[in-house]
């Protein structure tokens, strides 16, 4: 039984779907045992599934829906057409990696979608800890796992009686530590992050693990994070390999090669000969070695270019490129094209450096530039651990929850790298506030502040007149629920002690 994939228009498929059981003529030779077909409209994602009852060679008939007018070869007896959740092309290509192009038709194996059992966190806990949590919950005490883990040690050390006493004390402690209702947690968080800002260095660059790589840190990085900047000033990735490859230098070097976006100019000199109307590519050996490129890679890259003749000299390893159309303009064009022609690698990754972790003797790759989506498609890579510092990219590839965590992690890392202690709860609040709307919003007038419900609060922050004029046109109503607007009109604010009222009831006697 085989499965086919092919490209077709949405219009055709919708028509077929409406007809239900019908016969569909296609323009390729479909194997007779085909039972399933997946169809793409955009060559990237497959959005239809056709269940086929049988396949026969094409014969003209009126009871047919035709994919094309001409060149029809087979007829599919369609049982049903389903619209499905998009399946990316990569799912059908297990063996060979990232193929972007897709010809019209292909026979493939059925995509195997791995079903991973959803593991609950508690299951991963050791029985000892589950037991502690059970004892605690018997005392109506909700313990977090981290606290329970710390308790494990005392469970053995203390007598059951004393251990129970300890749990009681923890319960009392937790109760006294609860945050007060109406506490202005937002202001506290903002102050706690803003205040140490004055103590941070402005020095933009700092080495991050690898001596060769610079990463923005300190105040500029913190500002970048809260700004939700589309592209960070130094995007970089930390790429981990799957455990089985982690110690193999060979695999590592291959991955490096696959990652690094290398252009011809990176590894060779290009010399333009105006009299001969040719371009000579002179590969530089050490650069080639450093970038892990060999001559055939170079030739492969050239083969992708159009309108040129390539002559390769085996002896000197020089490559002569001649534009097919002889003109200076064309020569210049080709020269410019050659300079930026990619030999290999992933767009956006300027450099990749592999480092061996001294402690574990496992390889870790660091990259300059980031392209999470394509890096994750490389087979040898451990997608669970691979990381980028580009928050927006994480939001796009992995979703908003991942972005929330990455805002938190990046901010925490930036602050602790400077030796500044800031409670994690403040950073969580910032991350949650930036992402709770479903997209990453910046802290500032285009983001959170610009979408406040109060006209006065917006006017007081930035671009005063715009907000006031628009409020007039819309007849906006300021509900006076926030802090800034109540201060403006001279009323107590609605937080803390201002949020509650005391009523003194006189005793009737």
């Amino acid at each position, binding site marked *: 039984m085989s499965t086919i994939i092919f490209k077709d228009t949405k219009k055709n498929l919708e028509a077929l779907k409406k007809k239900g059981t019908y016969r569909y003529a296609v323009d390729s030779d479909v194997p007779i045992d085909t039972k399933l077909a997946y169809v793409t409209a955009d060559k990237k994602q497959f959005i239809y599934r056709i269940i086929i009852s049988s396949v026969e060679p094409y014969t003209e008939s009126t009871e047919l829906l035709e994919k094309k007018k001409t060149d029809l070869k087979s007829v599919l007896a369609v049982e049903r057409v389903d619209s499905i959740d998009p399946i990316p092309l990569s799912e059908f290509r297990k063996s060979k990696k990232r193929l972007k192009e897709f010809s019209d038709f292909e026979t493939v194996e059925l995509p195997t979608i791995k079903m991973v059992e959803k593991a609950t966190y508690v299951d991963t806990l050791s029985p000892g800890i589950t037991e502690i949590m059970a004892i605690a919950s018997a005392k109506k005490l909700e313990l977090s796992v*981290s606290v329970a883990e*710390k308790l494990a040690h005392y469970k053995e050390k*203390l007598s059951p009686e004393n251990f129970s006493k300890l749990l009681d*004390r923890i319960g009392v*402690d937790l109760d006294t*530590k*609860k*945050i007060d*209702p*109406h*506490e*202005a*947690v*937002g*202001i506290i*968080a*903002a*102050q*706690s992050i*803003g*205040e*140490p*800002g*004055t103590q941070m260095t402005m*020095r933009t660059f700092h080495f991050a693990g690898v001596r*060769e*790589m610079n990463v923005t840190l300190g*105040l500029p990085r913190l*500002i970048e994070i809260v700004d939700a900047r589309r592209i960070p000033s130094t995007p970089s990735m930390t790429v981990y390999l799957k455990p089985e490859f982690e110690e193999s230098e060979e695999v590592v070097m291959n991955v490096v090669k696959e990652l690094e976006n290398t252009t011809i100019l990176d590894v060779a000199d290009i010399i333009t000969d105006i009299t001969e109307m040719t371009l000579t590519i002179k590969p530089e050996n050490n650069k080639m070695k*450093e970038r892990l490129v060999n001559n055939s890679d170079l030739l492969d890259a050239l083969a992708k270019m159009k309108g040129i003749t390539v002559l390769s000299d085996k002896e000197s390893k020089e490559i002569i490129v001649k534009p097919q159309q002889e003109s200076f303009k064309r020569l210049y064009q080709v020269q410019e094209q050659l300079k930026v022609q990619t030999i290999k690698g992933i767009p956006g990754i300027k*450099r990749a450096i592999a480092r061996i972790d001294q402690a574990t003797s496992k390889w870790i790759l660091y990259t300059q530039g980031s392209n999470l989506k394509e890096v994750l498609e490389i087979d040898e890579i451990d997608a669970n651990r691979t990381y980028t510092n580009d928050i927006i990219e994480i939001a796009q590839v992995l979703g908003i929850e991942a972005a929330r965590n990455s805002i938190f992690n990046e901010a925490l890392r930036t602050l602790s790298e400077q030796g500044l*202690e800031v*409670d994690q*709860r403040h950073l*969580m*609040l910032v991350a*949650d506030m930036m992402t*709770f709307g479903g997209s990453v919003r910046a802290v500032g007038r285009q983001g*959170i502040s610009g979408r406040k*419900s*109060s006209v006065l*609060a917006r006017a*007081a922050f930035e671009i*005063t007149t715009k907000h006031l004029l628009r*409020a*007039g*046109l*819309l*007849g*906006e*109503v*300021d509900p006076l*629920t*926030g*802090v800034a607007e109540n*201060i*403006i*009109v001279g*009323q107590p604010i*609605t937080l803390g002690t201002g949020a509650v009222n005391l009523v003194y009831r006189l005793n009737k006697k």
Partner: protein
Amino acid sequence: MTGGISKRIYRIQFALLSPEEVRKMSQVKVITADTYDDDGYPIERGLMDLHMGVIEPGLKCATCGGKVDECPGHFGHIELAMPVVHVGFIKELKTLLDSTCKSCGRIKLTEDEMKTYKGRFSQLSFATSDPEIIGLNSKKATDEASQRMVCPHCGTQQNKIILDKPTTFREEGIKVTPKEIRERMERIPDSDLMFFGLNAEVARPEWMVLTVLAVPPINVRPSITLETGERSEDDLTHKLVDIIRISQRLRESRDNGSPQLIIEDLWDLLQFHVTTYFDNQTAGIPPARHRSGRALKTLVQRLKGKEGRFRSNLSGKRVNFSARTVISPEPFLSVNEVGVPEKAARELTVPVTVNIFNLEHVRELVKLGPEPRNEFGKYVAGVNYIIRPDGRRIKITTQNAEENSKRIEVGWVVERQLAEGDIVLFNRQPSLHRMSMMGHTVRILDGQTFRFNLAVCTPYNADFDGDEMNLHILQKEEARAEARIIMKVQEQIMSPRFGGPIIGGIHDHITAMFLLTHGNPLYPEDVTVHMLSYLDVDHMPEVELVGGKKFYRGRNIFSLLLPEGLNLRFTSKLCSGSKEKCAYEDDPLDKEVYIVNGKMIHGTIDEAAIGSFSGIIIDKIFRKYGSAAAAKFIDRMTRLGVAFLSSRGFSTGISDYDIPDNAITRIEEISTQAIERTNKLIETYRAGQLQPAPGRSVEDTLEIEILSTTGVVRDESGKIASTYLGLTNPSVIMARSGARAKMLNISEVAGMVGQQSVRGGRLNRGYYGRTLPHFKTEDIGAMARGFVKSSYKAGLNPIEYFMHSIGGREGLVDIAVRTSRSGYMQRRLINAFEDLKVDEELRVRDTIGAVIQFKYGEDGVDPTRSDKGDTVDVDYLAFNLEQEVE
């Protein structure tokens, strides 16, 4: 004047003013451009007409009859000769013109299209929905409508309208006059307005073309009289004068049939004046200027920006009952106190409302007059003013005090001078966190400065090199109660930033406690008694007899500060970090602090124990015994520190950095070696034999190599120097105990200053290819690139000094840039987060009620009360339990 807020504003609706409404609210139609007549009396129907309010004492408002300060001011209006467009709404007018039919006034959408858009708008409310979303929807509708060149309703052919910035519209190259625009706007039916994001209930498009201009009350634009007697008018009045003049000329020209060209010119001029009246920074037109050449500050400028109405008058205000002066230290004050100079205390007052219970007391108080003193000549709070129930203030003088004290009745208010024990707010700018403004109780002191305990320097980030601070006297009982319960210094010991103490020992406190406990020294009885006389102790610590004389142990003396029942075990800072340092201690008992039942058994007290930010002892006392006990501990620690250091003596000088000659030679040697090594590296580089580090150019590699070489030398020289500087050296004591400076600073003084850098690299700018003309252009050796081989003590040679200054300047620039950048970041953060609060279920919600977090911080724990961020400190609780069980 007392009493709470009787009314609360629950909402404010915004709207556009219609011409009718302007006329309705106007008290006078202004027709003359003049202000005052020759006698200085406001001209009737002029810009200063008495109907619009009064600013001169003696005159009464013609509208409400109120005097100055009573009359709130009233609007007037100007009838413009010809309509002009409102600059603020140019964009809206453009879309309105683009998207509506020029003849029938309907939006150029078919019925079907209108239906779909209507569906979208019906889900939105103009008054409360997000304006961004309304804007997006209306943009879609208007974009579609403006594309259509034939009206779907009446079939009229449409023309393209071009906006000639800032205020001229052209259709087919012909100017569309504001009059015509207004006519077109009038034709748009109410039912079509929603597609433009206009709320038909409050705004009509023709109101964006002005026919009447509201004249703001005189209180808004007061004129000032200079010393010369000359009157100077407000910028707005100037602008209004211009508008009236041109409007009149335009009316006359139009009425006596002047040529069209002249009328148009005047019309344009009127447009210019009205435009600049609203916004004098409109792009595309020159700002209107004052006679002196200064650009006028008109309506938009009054509101906008940092100095505008919103940020400088509405969001923040100037206050009375406040004082500001230089600060200085006073270790004998509690952290909760602030020393206020007498001069300030006499000026600052607290209002006391007279009631039947305090009547007699208040009468006695008033009798004292404004400058009472007790029999020792010390300050006693007097009374400055008494306020009658009708609001009249009576100044109390020594002469009238007696007489006035008798007049006082229930309901009067007495403004009593500041007294000891009053709670006040004390603040130092920049107020970056809540600990920048705390409640202190007053102590009246001699002198001219505010004084406070040194432990409070950290939260205020204050030092005494000329810093000034502000003091605010609370005027209401609620405020005083909140200040005492929430804002008082002792309640702020724990920082919400990291859940540890931010108030704690600094500098000398740490030095003193370190010396007192390190090695557990013995002190003879007289010294001990002297030290303890600074504290309020009722018993002596454990005595030890040596040679028949009484001696006391340092740790036992320190134990007097600790509350009973305190159990603690931790490692001191002395030992944190490298193991090397730890091993270097002779007595292993010095590293581990062990406190049982409020008695220090062994260990060394240093920054980790009592310092601000880290102080474990303060942290635990606060948690176990509360804020008052923690404050008491800090107060007593300060006193003991002063007592100890004043009896022992502690100082450092240049001779403390003396190291033997052989060490100096050794340092010289290694620095010469480093320079040689650098030269060798350069040679290799020149010879082209330097292997580049992966991913780096040869030049970069060279720089990195050299930097690491010079870095190593500095460290080594530091090591050499510090072997000769032991724990007897005051600087080393300060560095090791965490009181001040790092070992690095000591090695800079005694050993070598080391490589100077700019932006993380060696110095390289200045002349072409060299830093200074003293070097050859190709010289990239150590000295030519800012290597300082001298120590601060030995002194820098002129070239080194210059290089050092270059490095130092980077630091200064860095600070300047950083403060402004981080200040703006904090402003944005505060603005974005100010409305968030925790509700009763520990959820975090914003003003609309949207949930940001379902449980604050994932565990609902207050960071201030957390154990340095942890939910609970299990180890500490267990340790305490163990101690108690034993």
